[in-house]
């Protein structure tokens, strides 16, 4: 996750709301508009023709309109309402076996043709330094097709007034339940993406995402102590219907905790957060040592993201991210051996950009490849990576995995993380039954602090809520918990996974990668899972 993308902390150097690059702030009503399909098609054809004429052997064009809305509140105040729009055309070409890219925010045919030619010039200039020509896995053109996130209620169409009222009701619920401070926010995204390529595809997609984070803080003035509890929602590939609570979206979990799946009761969660933040102020500090950890999906998604999602990105494995995000311990020799035990036999991890309601769900990726599901870890063995058209040849495959993405029309598309999920257990098992079998453990809910090394070996994770488990029962809420892992040992310590009934998604709205950095959104599903003998440290410190 890219922390800096979402630093809205007060303090030195902060203060300005971070807007996506090249975004224009616009009026709310403009959020419902779209670029005419005929215009997109004609611009794409202009670019394809200009690139071919200039000497490109391949060209793809992305005509994009990217919309964001942020509503930011604290206590009884609206701090900010921002609508942004970013429209333009990004053109990627292959010439002399080398990539070139250029982009323009002008939707005139002249500008688009000029950008296409510029992309070819850049490709030819860079080809002087190229030692191995780019080879693309074949993609059959699909003609004119369209795809849209299956939303029920377009969040961009919901009046600002309704959104403000919801967030202020959330804040009031937290304050009335004993919180000292509360921040709640809505992040809404709509990517209107049109992709065309010299393969003969014209793909129009309308992608929606929603995130409603909240943070509740309780303070004890006398001791100067403070504790926060973040919301237990997940960012989703859904419309505003996610924020309309349903009975099936509410999950009663161990420890009296309520979690959420396909819908989110933000008011109820804020109220629960206030009570739990107060409890955190008085909770017992954890005794460091080895524990059996029971990890809820609202927590485990981030561990999956960092310790499986990133190390199985093929560009990291090959060294393309060595200077920034890092490389990977999951090297090609481990994969080739077909025996590398990434996890225990019950660990099956798959990539899937077709999962409904997930953040990564699209019909086609940003190089026109139809999305699919594939295995990454099968029965504990590393069996594959995440790779795109110019990479899958290295794996001996003929088809791209369909996980190429650019965060804007102005950014070059590259390999990004697919939804990566832990398959639910095959045997019937509920979280309560799982806990009943644990003698000395900790049940962790919600994601907290996270840090992992540049090859994804050594990681440390916190959480939002920690419950001590003694002799099969939850005793009390505890604090100051963080666990440290070495990735393969951790996944090999996976001793049980609850069944399909408990399978839920968590996710990251702003996952950072690349230079210049781009962010993407990705979901990770799992059921509650148990990991035996994990090292837990105590994070309490005294500044005197």
């Amino acid at each position, binding site marked *: 996750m890219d922390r800096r993308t979402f630093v809205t902390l007060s303090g*030195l*150097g902060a203060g300005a709301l971070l807007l996506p690059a090249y*975004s224009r*702030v616009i009026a709310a009503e403009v959020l419902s508009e779209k670029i005419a399909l005929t215009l997109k098609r004609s611009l794409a054809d202009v670019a394809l023709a200009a690139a071919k004429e200039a000497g490109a052997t391949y060209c793809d064009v992305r005509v994009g309109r990217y919309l964001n809305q942020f509503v930011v509140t604290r206590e009884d105040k609206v701090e900010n309402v921002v609508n942004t729009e970013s429209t333009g055309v990004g053109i990627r070409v292959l010439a002399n076996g080398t990539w070139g890219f250029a982009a323009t925010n002008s939707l005139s045919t002249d500008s688009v043709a000029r950008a296409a030619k510029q992309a070819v010039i850049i490709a030819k200039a860079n080809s002087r330094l190229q030692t191995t020509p780019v080879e693309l896995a074949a993609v059959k053109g699909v003609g004119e097709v369209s795809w849209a996130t299956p939303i029920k209620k377009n969040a961009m169409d919901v009046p600002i007034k309704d959104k403000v009222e919801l967030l202020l009701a959330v804040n009031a619920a937290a304050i009335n339940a004993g919180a*000292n401070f509360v921040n709640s926010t809505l992040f809404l995204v709509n990517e209107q993406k049109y992709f065309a390529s010299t393969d003969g595809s014209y793909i129009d997609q309308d992608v929606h995402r929603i995130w409603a984070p909240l943070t509740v803080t309780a303070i004890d003035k006398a001791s100067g102590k403070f504790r926060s509890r973040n919301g237990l929602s997940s960012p989703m590939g859904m419309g505003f219907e996610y924020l309309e609570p349903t009975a099936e979206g509410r999950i009663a979990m161990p420890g009296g905790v309520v979690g959420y799946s396909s819908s989110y009761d933000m008011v109820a969660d804020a109220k629960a957060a206030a009570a739990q933040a107060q409890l955190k102020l008085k909770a017992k500090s954890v005794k460091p040592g080895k524990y059996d950890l029971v990890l809820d999906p609202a927590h485990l998604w981030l561990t999956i993201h960092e310790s499986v999602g990133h190390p199985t990105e093929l560009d990291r494995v090959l*060294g393309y991210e060595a*200077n920034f995000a890092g490389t990977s311990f999951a090297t090609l020799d481990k994969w080739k051996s077909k025996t590398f035990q990434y996890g225990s036999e019950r660990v099956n991890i798959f990539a899937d950009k077709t999962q409904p309601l997930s953040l990564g769900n699209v019909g086609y990726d940003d190089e026109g490849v139809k999305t699919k599901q594939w295995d990454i870890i099968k029965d504990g063995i590393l069996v594959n990576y995440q790779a795109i058209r110019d990479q899958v040849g290295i794996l001996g495959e003929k088809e791209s995995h369909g996980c190429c993405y650019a965060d804007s029309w102005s950014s070059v598309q590259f390999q990004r993380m697919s939804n990566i999920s832990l398959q639910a257990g095959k045997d019937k098992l509920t979280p309560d039954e799982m806990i009943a079998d644990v003698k000395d453990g900790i049940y962790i809910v919600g994601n907290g602090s996270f*840090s992992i090394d540049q090859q*994804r070996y050594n990681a440390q994770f916190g959480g939002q809520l920690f419950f001590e488990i003694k002799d099969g029962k939850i005793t009390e809420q505890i604090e100051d918990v963080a666990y440290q892992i070495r990735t393969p040992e951790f996944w090999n310590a996976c001793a049980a996974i609850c069944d399909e009934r408990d399978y839920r998604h968590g996710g990251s709205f702003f996952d950072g990668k690349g230079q210049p950095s781009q962010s993407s959104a990705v979901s990770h599903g799992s059921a509650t899972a148990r990991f035996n003998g994990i090292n837990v440290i105590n994070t309490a410190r005294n*500044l005197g």
Partner: protein
Amino acid sequence: MTLFNEAEAKAILDKVIKLSKADECSANLAGASEGNIRFARNGVSTSGEVQDCTLAVTVAYGKRVGTATIGEFDDAALERVVRRAEELAKLAPENPEFMSVIEKQTYTASTSFIEATAAITPDFRAQVAADCIEPCKADKLVAAGYFVNSNGFIATANSKGNFGYQKVTSADLTCTVRTEDERGSGWVSSNVADVALFDAKRSIRTAISKAKGSAEAKALEPGKYTVILEPEAASGLISFMLFGFDARQADEGRSFLTKKGGGNRVGEKVFDERVNIYSDPWDAEVPVPAWDQEGLARTKTQIVNKGVVEYLQYSRFWAKQKDKQAVGQPGNIIMQGGEATTEELIKQTKRGVLLTRTWYIRMVDPQSMLLTGLTRDGTFYIEDGEIKYPVKNFRFNESPVIMLNNIEALGKSVRLAGGGGGGGGLLLKMPSMKVRDFTFTSLSDAV
């Protein structure tokens, strides 16, 4: 058009202010030409040049505020952006913390623009990549890096007659060098205002020597060690700590600078008396624009003086609540160092660990500012004043507040880009530092 001169920028901003029918109006114009080249596996992977200029207009009707931005600057576009801001303001809820636009300020420009840096070309960038790649190839090493340069300006104006214009340039290289067998890794960064001070060929030698020197790493037991943090390693923790220097957070009871019983710790000695941190927009090595995001004039500000916290950042609203004066928010952070080089700090060390770089730093507990992260790209064991051998990387769990109470010695302060470690884009000048009892909690196999 991307790079407007002062007269052009003023003409645009004057028109905007005049067009507005709202109670008050402020406008910011910023443009830049930014070029980059990225390389990996000893070859160029991507390169590009982006030109962009944005006008942001904020208007207010009473306590209702609206902001709109645009990238076109003809009369019709200026009219459109002002009207759109006005429409948004009329729709916006009242902001109870609304503050009127700032009074006319007096800005004293800093030397943030250097002609030679503005003149960097794509060929120059390609040469930087080549200067990094070629010696690595020759030495059977693998380079991956990123060079980015920017030439831009910012301008601000408001309906109370305020106006400012300043040009800014920068150039920044980072490069990771790894051995072919992936057992050694080194890193170097170079951030300059004046490209005349930039020398990729010289810089890359540091990364090469760290990569080769770190290849046969031994494992040390985790625990408390005396460490020498090179400036980049120190800056990761210290710049993160500065997020806690917000007056409102402290007054509200949710900062490590909150006082027991209420209020904040301004005036208290929180760090070792050798800790002096300040901000100075006119510093010759890290000059920054003369005003902050709100247009408030920046000035030289002592943040920590001999270990005593002297400054917390007040927003204009919070300053009004607390009867304080809001000053321009810092654009750079300078921690005063000593005269010793890193080599001299090593010579003075009986047993210790040298850290090139800290990485993936995250907050564990804001109450104590406990941070976790890892060492990377060159970690070495020191004994009897000499580097003895490379050691495996560590995970640390340490509070910079505790770290800055455990100082043994400070080295020279050098210019760094603040982006990587958590500086939030601030320019930094940080010293290397020798610190006792630094807490490593586990080993990492990562190279």
